[in-house]
């Protein structure tokens, strides 16, 4: 008799939960030491609904197929010198920001999900986390392979892992993930699985991927596509985990709410880099940050929280503050990089008149009143040969680690200053959101590695700016400063001139 083939469902059950067992040589609490200390109560792990019924062997098959397609496109892109076909040489700085700021987070996500994939007691979530862990490693690899082609031509790319651990603005995304990974497995799942991958993901990947599409970067578009089916699994896992925790025990609600509040705010702060990218760095704009926020947070997030209301979960604290700030953060962030351009590993530029007009149109309530004059003042200074740089180092927020450049809700002329004292020492914050996070766990954040303080303590290669940039492995005069006049700019102009000659 021929052996009977198992149905998909049975196969899945055997190959996942069927491989799990109740330990006897060691108590389960010793085998899974991390899944109780956060106070989360799980009555029944088997109630977990597996969000995607995928066994390892079919996982490998799917992923291998996607890899083949991706690498075929990358090869073609390289052979056809696709890098010469993007909208403008400035666009490459978006790719640089992505590789230095976001790709290392894929690796952090890989490590984090490997941890939860080991330490959650239920086999269902454990397997989902293990697959996501592999996805995230693959995302890092495909991004490195895609962007390595640009590294042959453009500056600021080659030292991205070294820079991620050291450079002042990269401490913002790095500390975000360090915070999540230093938490317990349930907080990590809410932080990254829910807040980042579900609630905020469309504000990160859609802008980068549609930005790439609008600007002729077909290689980045392709890795985006290649990650898309993974991302939909990640979203499903994120929503499943929050529902599971809320259904398991009513005592979980206040803990989960606290994490949702915290990780919404931390995520929102990191996304300021995307805001700036959308409003200032894309030569061909997709939409404004404010529009993206309305679509992907106010509308989509609004209906999500309506759905979660039945569990008692509320819209994250300070969501209203973040929405108000959507008028301001892109302008405030690009201004930070404009004045610290000498210390950034990508290029900045002054928005031209057409660009300023676009911003006026997209931000009718605020741009002409507060931000346009700032650019006009700096443009005037540039014309006089006095390009504006900030000669001092900025004060940083103890939690988000961003220069304290954000203004009071409702008053864009006043910097928001908040502080707390712990054991006789003062700690400063950019917002009530960051202060609340600190006040809830001061022991954690008094250890923050703040780049500016580290420089003053003498831990960053020396006392002068060139010493520090050298310690960052920044190639001064190539990686940093304005786009206009940079080696990138010269190369782009040469390509452009060659294309024009060929066309004649």
């Amino acid at each position, binding site marked *: 008799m021929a052996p009977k083939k198992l149905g998909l469902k049975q196969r899945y059950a055997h190959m996942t939960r069927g491989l799990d067992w109740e330990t006897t040589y060691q108590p389960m609490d010793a085998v899974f030491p991390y899944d109780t200390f956060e106070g989360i109560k799980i009555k029944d792990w088997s109630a977990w609904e597996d969000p995607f019924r995928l066994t390892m062997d079919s996982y490998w098959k799917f992923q291998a197929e996607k890899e083949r397609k991706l690498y075929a496109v990358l090869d073609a892109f390289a052979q056809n010198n696709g890098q010469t076909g993007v909208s403008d040489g400035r666009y490459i700085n978006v790719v640089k920001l992505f590789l230095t700021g976001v790709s290392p987070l894929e690796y952090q996500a890989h490590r984090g999900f490997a941890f939860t994939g080991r330490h959650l007691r239920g086999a269902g979530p454990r397997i989902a986390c293990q697959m996501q862990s592999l996805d995230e490693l693959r995302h890092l690899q495909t991004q490195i392979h895609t962007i390595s082609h640009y590294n042959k031509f453009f500056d600021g790319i080659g030292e991205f892992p070294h820079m991620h651990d050291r450079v002042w603005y990269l401490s913002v995304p790095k500390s975000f993930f360090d915070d999540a990974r230093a938490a*317990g497995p349930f907080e990590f799942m809410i932080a990254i699985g829910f807040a980042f991958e579900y609630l905020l993901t469309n504000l990160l990947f859609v802008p980068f991927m549609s930005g790439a599409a609008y600007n002729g970067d077909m290689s980045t578009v392709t890795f985006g596509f290649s990650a898309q089916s993974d991302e939909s699994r990640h979203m499903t896992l994120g929503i499943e985990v929050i529902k599971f925790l809320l259904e398991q025990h009513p005592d979980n609600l206040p803990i989960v709410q606290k994490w949702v509040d915290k990780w919404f705010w931390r995520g929102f702060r990191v996304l300021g880099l995307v805001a700036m990218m959308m409003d200032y760095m894309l030569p061909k704009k997709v939409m404004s940050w404010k529009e993206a926020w309305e679509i992907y947070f106010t509308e989509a997030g609004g209906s999500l929280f309506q759905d979660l209301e039945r569990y008692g979960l509320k819209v994250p604290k300070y969501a209203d503050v973040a929405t108000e700030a959507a008028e301001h953060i892109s302008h405030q962030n690009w201004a930070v990089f404009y004045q610290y351009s000498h210390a950034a590993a990508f290029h900045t530029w002054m928005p031209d008149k057409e660009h300023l007009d676009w911003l006026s149109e997209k931000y009718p309530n605020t741009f002409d009143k507060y931000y346009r004059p700032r650019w006009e003042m700096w443009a005037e200074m540039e014309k006089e040969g006095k390009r504006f740089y900030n000669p001092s180092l900025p004060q940083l927020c103890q939690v988000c680690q961003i220069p304290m450049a954000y203004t009071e809700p409702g008053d864009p002329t006043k910097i928001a200053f908040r502080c707390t004292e712990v054991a006789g020492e003062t700690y400063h914050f950019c917002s009530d959101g960051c202060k609340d996070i600190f006040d809830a766990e001061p022991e954690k954040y008094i250890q923050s590695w703040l780049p500016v303080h580290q420089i003053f303590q003498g831990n960053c290669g020396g006392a002068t700016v060139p010493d520090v940039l050298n310690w960052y492995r920044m190639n001064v005069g190539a990686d940093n400063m304005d786009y206009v006049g940079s080696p990138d700019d010269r190369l782009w102009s040469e390509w452009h001139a060659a294309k024009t000659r060929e066309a004649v």
Partner: protein
Amino acid sequence: MSVTAIVPDYARRIEPRDPVENFHGNMLVYVHWEDHLSFCSAVAFPLPPAIPFGAFVSEVVAPAYAAHPEAASIDWSAVVWMIDGATKVPDMEASLAANGMKHKTLVRFWTPGLSGWKGTAS
């Protein structure tokens, strides 16, 4: 509130990263010129607590903001100072410490009549 940690003695295992002892005899001072947001945020300096406030103004604060078109018009004698949230008239001869400044003090100042480029707080 306190940290959620797997070990009960977490607080005893850690150290704050920025105590004044780590700054080689200096203390950190943050400075912000109000209504001049072309300087994107307050800025930080490691300074000896013993320097006179007057020297702090002329050697540290003034040069930090010199690039601003309004910098030359500042009347330093008319400046309104706020030290850690309290409006103060600092004693220019006295040290930073004697003026109530400590590690991580925030000094904000207003320049009457100057409210940023074309009055836009820039």
